[in-house]
């Protein structure tokens, strides 16, 4: 499925849009880390929580559960949400 990558993570993917596989959001992140080593830890902490300024959207809807089931036609968007200087 298609994954949209925010600019802070392009140093890993070298592209704003990549393909990844998985039946859940968690599996997609594992696949992204396989393709782009180090990717997952920058967005998911060691206790498997989403990091505070990272947001995940599936088909435009915000998702908070890494176990969320996905279909191959789904589109995932990662958003970096940061305020302050």
């Amino acid at each position, binding site marked *: 499925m298609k994954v949209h990558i925010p600019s802070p993570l392009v140093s890993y993917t070298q592209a704003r849009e990549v393909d990844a596989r998985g039946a859940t959001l968690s599996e997609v992140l594992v696949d992204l880390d396989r393709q782009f080593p180090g990717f997952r*830890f920058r967005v*998911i*902490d060691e206790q498997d929580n989403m990091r505070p300024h990272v947001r995940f959207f599936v088909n435009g809807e915000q998702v908070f559960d890494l176990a969320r089931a996905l279909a191959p036609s789904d589109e995932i968007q990662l958003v970096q949400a*940061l305020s302050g200087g």
Partner: protein
Amino acid sequence: MARAKQKTAPKKQSGSTKKEKVILLVATRKGAWIFHGDSARTRWRADGPHFLGHIVSHVVLDPRDGKTLLAAAKTGHLGPTVFRSTDLGRTWKEAARPPAFPKAKEGEKGRVVDHTFWLTPGHASEPATWYAGTSPQGLFRSVDGGVTWDSVSGFNDEPEHVKRMGGQQDGTPDGPKLHSVIVDPRDRNHLYLGMSSGGFHESRDRGATWTPLSQGMEVVGGFDPANLTFHDPHSVQICPSNPDRLYQQNHCGIYRLDRPGKTWTRVGKAMPKKVGDVGFPVVVHPRDADVAWVFPMDGTDVWPRTSPGGSPAAYVTRNGGKTWQRQDGGMPKSEAWWTVKRQAMAADACPKVGLYLGTTSGEVWASRNEGKAWAPIARHLPEIYAVETASIG
């Protein structure tokens, strides 16, 4: 694996007859810079920014090979990591497994590394070993030159230590820190570390077990010094010329410890009363254990932690803390409200020792004569978190 872009590449140093030169490794809230000094330490060439926009807490050169750099970094969005360069910053590669606490068991609350704060190269006999201190307080070790990191379980999983670490409430404004990881140059199994807060601790078995070493250290009035939670060592340095001597700048004063003694002496009581002995960094002389420098901060009222009276100055002792002399030559005499953080002051190892400091307002100041006269060597940088020195041939 993420690779960082770099604007300029340092020229290769070659030839054994070349005189050693000093470099400064400046870590800031928005990236890192490497300043290359000429042989007289009068002109400095800036190499950077490296990792522009990253929050860089510490950059350290491995003195064992003279070319490997580690940088502790994160961004406002992304989780913490460590970058590694084996060519003095020309190229960087991310650690394959950065410092991270173990995954908690089902139903238990696990800890999360917010950022790696401190980096220490291991003992000379262990050329691939590094230590890292994190926020919140955690100790990590790499035995492959910083590529992969493991939790030092003897510290991180010890319930008494975890209890003392408290949480964000008792930490510094940027989070509670584990810092001042020190390896005894005579014994690779002998380690020290400090926690803000949580006190100062010693291990004789390479981190498997730890003993508090906070006796004599004072705490904020009204609290029990027997409770290590209240102890806040800001920075601790071991004297290379006499590793039995340590100096400490604490939230509550300047201290000296001579081993095998176990009680710190508050040598900061000899500081001028109107200046006080509050501050963040302490720096030791590379060859004379009686000489150390501090950079006092205002610890009155609401603790501004700026230069007392708006008049910045270093203070030096040349007799182990019995007396202190003011060193403000070249610095602004008034209306200069500097803050210098705990990692942001360092000494080089030149025959006439050079001193360097970085301010939170983005200035780097240097002295080529052991603090007698100071001059700025860089301005308009982001908030400076750390300044380290190294010699390259």
